[in-house]
């Protein structure tokens, strides 16, 4: 029984980790290559979620919704890259923080105007709305398995893109030898716009996939953004591999602590106070993980770029 519960929670943790990976991959790519700390990455997640929910409801097809969400978030990302972000690449982090903070305020309010303050809800599409018995006697939601599979496919795809394609070669070269890539006749501005759009699309994908599991509301982007930061701190800035390992670690730790800490506390405390203390402390699990990583590896587990 406990083993099954543990395995089920492991799947939950993997699913959460995969979502975080989609967010962290884009953020870390943009930081690694353009040295931009983009707080508004969560806004692109929000755009993905809202567009997916709206189009799905209008068209009746989740897949069309998903496709539109990817397109909308990539397009939004590329537009803000051209209008604002590219002016920030050579600025201090402080400027980047402030400017992208301004962009968050703008998007949050824009979404409030377009969709209103109430949360939207979306059901998983019919073909994913069942359960599969991956573990004996433990039906597991198909939709969550779908998310895990999607994340793994994206991870492999990114790996292929960066290691084996021309764009990936330029990305790797652009990160270290900006002038050289420019001298090869590649328009570095466009390369950056594409990379930013790619990161935005991944965030949009995460948002769209999250739609059927959470309330779609203003501010959802910031909640996941901060978790993504924890992932990147744990994994190391600028490293896709770090993003993957960090995301899975954070997803698993968060899920385990939330599932098992209150249970453990109930063994030693009376139920009422065990539940309230458990609720307050279990949310801190990943931050404690972060603090521990900081103590031993201040630059994360897989550091790709030094910051000083």
């Amino acid at each position, binding site marked *: 029984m406990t083993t099954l519960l543990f395995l089920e929670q492991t799947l939950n943790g993997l699913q959460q980790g995969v979502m975080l990976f989609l967010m962290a991959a884009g953020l870390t790519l943009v*930081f690694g290559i353009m040295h931009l*700390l983009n707080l508004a990455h969560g806004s692109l997640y929000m755009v993905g979620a809202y567009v997916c929910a709206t189009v799905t409801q209008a068209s009746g097809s989740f897949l069309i919704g998903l496709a539109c969400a990817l397109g909308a978030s990539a397009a939004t990302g590329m537009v803000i890259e051209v209008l*604002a972000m590219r*002016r*920030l690449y050579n*600025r201090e*982090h*402080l*400027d980047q*923080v*402030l*400017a992208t*903070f*301004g*962009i*968050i*305020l*703008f*998007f*949050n*309010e*824009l979404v*409030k*105007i377009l969709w209103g303050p109430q949360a939207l809800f979306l059901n998983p599409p019919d073909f994913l709305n069942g359960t599969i018995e991956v573990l004996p006697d433990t039906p597991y939601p198909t939709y969550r398995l779908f998310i895990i599979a999607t994340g793994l496919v994206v991870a492999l795809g990114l790996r292929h893109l960066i290691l084996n394609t021309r764009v990936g070669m330029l990305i790797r070269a652009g990160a270290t030898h900006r002038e050289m890539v420019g001298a090869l006749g590649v328009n570095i501005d466009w390369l950056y716009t594409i990379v930013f759009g790619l990161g935005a699309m991944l965030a949009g994908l995460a948002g769209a996939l999250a739609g059927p599991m959470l309330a779609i509301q203003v501010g959802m982007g*910031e909640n996941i953004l*901060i978790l993504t*930061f*924890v992932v*990147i*701190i744990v994994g190391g*800035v600028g490293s896709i591999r770090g993003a993957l390992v960090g995301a899975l670690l954070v997803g698993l730790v968060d899920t385990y602590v939330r599932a098992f800490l209150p249970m453990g506390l109930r063994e030693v405390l009376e139920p009422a106070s065990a539940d*309230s203390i458990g*609720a*307050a*402390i279990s*949310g*801190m699990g990943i*931050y404690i993980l*972060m*603090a521990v990583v*900081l*103590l031993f590896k*201040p*630059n*994360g587990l897989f550091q790709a770029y030094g*910051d*000083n």
Partner: protein
Amino acid sequence: MRVRIVQLITLLILFTLPFIAQWAGQPFWIDLTTRIVIYGIAAMSLDIILGYGGMVSLGHAMFLGIGAYSMGILTHHSFEGSVVPFLPGEWTGSTSGFVHLAASILASGLLGLVIGLLSLRTVGVYFIMITLAFAQMMFYFFIALPTYGGEDGLNVWSRSEIPGLDLSDSMTFYFVCLGLLCAFWFIARRLVDSRFGGVLRGCKQNEQRLKALGYNTIRYKLIAFTIAGAGAGLAGGLLANLTEFVGPGTMHWTKSGELIVMVLLGGMGTLIGPVLGSAALLLLEEILSGFTEHWMIVLGPILLLVVLFARRGIYGFLAGKEAKDG
């Protein structure tokens, strides 16, 4: 010279404004100005680490919140007559303003020490993300903690008690806040001009050189971080008094963002600048929200434009070149 004039005018305005408000029959102005002063203290404390020490903390509102909760929790227990659970002994809180002041400053300073110890191991973009993450941790902690109201927060049944002063009178309360602003300003002035302050400024400009000269820079940064936390805690205690309410919203990360905005808007690396920035942001909010409830859609792009085109801030604009070291 221009620096002195701008500082004097600022003080003059702050000292006369409540009287003008009273004369104009707009008591609401006093509350607004009190908020400006309180956030001014918080922004000034942030600028000690941000503008002088070069540490971009995106979690400063955490200290504001801890300061506020310190005051709120002590008042709460005092009214309930219940024992403060996380402290040794059988203390049932207090309503004394002096105790509140000490508690707000100590609690947030202590938290600053702990958070600083962990996050100052890193620099640059890591530091930004880590301070944000820890602040968010505290935010969620108080949301999930039912003892003090969780998400709904805690009502503060009365303002702090100081013998001889009636803080429930908004004018009196305002001048207490203003007095504390001036005191903090003076202390901060001495601090940044001292030997310690020299090292702190050096950390921002060229930390590697300081280490090569023999400074264990992390200790200096840690102390500055602690002092800044304590300053924000002081502001938090006052804020709890002003709103007679404490809630997790005070330490939401957008508040940390706003504090940074105040510093930049007013003038980074100066002390009075952040107070001007606090005035500018709160007034801007007030004015914009008079036009539309969706005022943030205007504020966001304004911030972007300020970053891209007006880096010197209001104080830099008013005081000219001298403002660099005000």
